[in-house]
């Protein structure tokens, strides 16, 4: 049986004695693995920070990350995972950055010293646990990132654009869930007011499937616009969407629908009294 506190003590001593060599080797390995995505200075500061927190934990003799003494190291590792998740590193690349510490320490271990070797094995298991922890926090960070990006997409992908004097358009792209539909409706109605437009074109070319929820949102938007005195045209109904909507039993009533945004624009211009006429070619007249 190895007494954990002595095991920890031996390696703790080494971590202090060989601080500079180990940090340099570790930083070199991490820099190399980053393939140019991190600057030397960034790696230096990350590695030193991790090393400091880790040495403190080893000094305390604790052998896992759950103890209160490990709070600082946990925070440092979590920050590493988060920043790497954001910068497009893979989860294995992220844990390798931690695992590389083992090689750096091993190179400083005198292999004829059985006591130190046993201590290194103990330390090695500890580092494995750190690596696993970064793996978990990395996954969580990725998920948060995806949710965030989804929210950004929601903002980005619902522009209301002025197509003509008195005609605004909303090109819907992607999934129109309730949250986004709400955003779209509010934005459209606000733009109608702000621009004093009488026509709105809702283009659904980019919506992969129109189910009853999407249809209900679109219909509600059209009704709300009507109450404000504006007329809505729905465009971009592709053949497969048209067939599906009919099978579902959705009726668009007296709402004008057009195959393309261009057709819808011509329709609204005509309704507002503008005729589009092709200019006669020069020389023809």
């Amino acid at each position, binding site marked *: 049986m190895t007494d954990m506190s002595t095991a920890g003590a031996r390696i703790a001593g080494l971590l202090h004695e060989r601080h500079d060599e180990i940090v340099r080797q570790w930083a070199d390995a991490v820099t190399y693995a980053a393939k140019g995505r991190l600057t030397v200075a960034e790696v230096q500061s990350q590695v030193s920070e991790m090393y400091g927190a880790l040495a403190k934990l080893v000094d305390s003799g604790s052998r896992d990350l759950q103890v209160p003494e490990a709070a600082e190291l946990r925070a440092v590792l979590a920050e590493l995972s988060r920043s790497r998740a954001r910068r497009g590193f893979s989860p294995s690349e992220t844990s390798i950055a931690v695992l590389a510490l083992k090689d750096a320490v091993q190179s400083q271990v005198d292999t004829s010293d059985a006591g130190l070797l046993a201590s290194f094995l103990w330390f090695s298991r500890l580092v494995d646990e750190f690596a696993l922890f970064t793996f978990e926090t990395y996954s969580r960070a990725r998920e948060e990132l995806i949710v965030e990006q*989804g929210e950004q997409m929601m903002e980005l992908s619902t522009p209301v654009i002025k197509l003509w004097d008195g005609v605004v358009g909303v090109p819907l792209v992607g*999934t129109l*869930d*309730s*949250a986004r539909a709400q955003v779209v409706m509010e934005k459209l109605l606000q733009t109608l007011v702000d621009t004093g437009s009488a026509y709105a074109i809702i283009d659904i070319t980019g919506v*992969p*499937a*129109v*189910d*009853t*929820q999407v*249809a*209900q949102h679109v219909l509600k938007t059209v009704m709300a616009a009507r109450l404000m005195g504006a007329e809505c045209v729905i465009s971009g109904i592709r*053949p*497969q*969407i048209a*067939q*599906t909507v009919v*099978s*579902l*039993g*959705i009726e668009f009533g007296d709402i004008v629908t057009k195959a393309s945004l261009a057709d819808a624009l011509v329709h609204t211009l005509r309704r507002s009294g503008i005729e589009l006429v092709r200019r006669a070619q020069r020389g023809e007249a």
Partner: protein
Amino acid sequence: MYPAAAPQQVNLVPIVRDDDVVRVRQAVRTAALAAKLSLVDQTKLVTAASELARNTLIYGGGGRAEIEQADNGRKRGVRVVFADEGPGIADLELAMTDGYTSGNGMGLGLSGARRLVDEFDIDTAAGRGTRITVTKWAR
């Protein structure tokens, strides 16, 4: 020791949050592509799945979708099961009526989904949850 035939690959997607409905749709779309369904049939199946997944979430209180490739010896297709342990449907005929909703929907999800697929099987009773199996075959 081992079953003679390889077990059917079933893709289980939990339905507990709003965005799980999107996940179900995406998984069904992928399966429909693999089964070589036409664009129209893909869209119909994905739309039916969207309706049923949302019912599972809203009325069933959450549940799961099980998506698998189907093969009847002559045709390939996709089979999707929607299952929940919710209140079940006491009056099935009423629930399947166009326009009936006990919530704020259009009341076209169940009846519309049935029209969008080739096979529609529903197993439900008050207090026993709801299990709906739909299949769409490639033509």
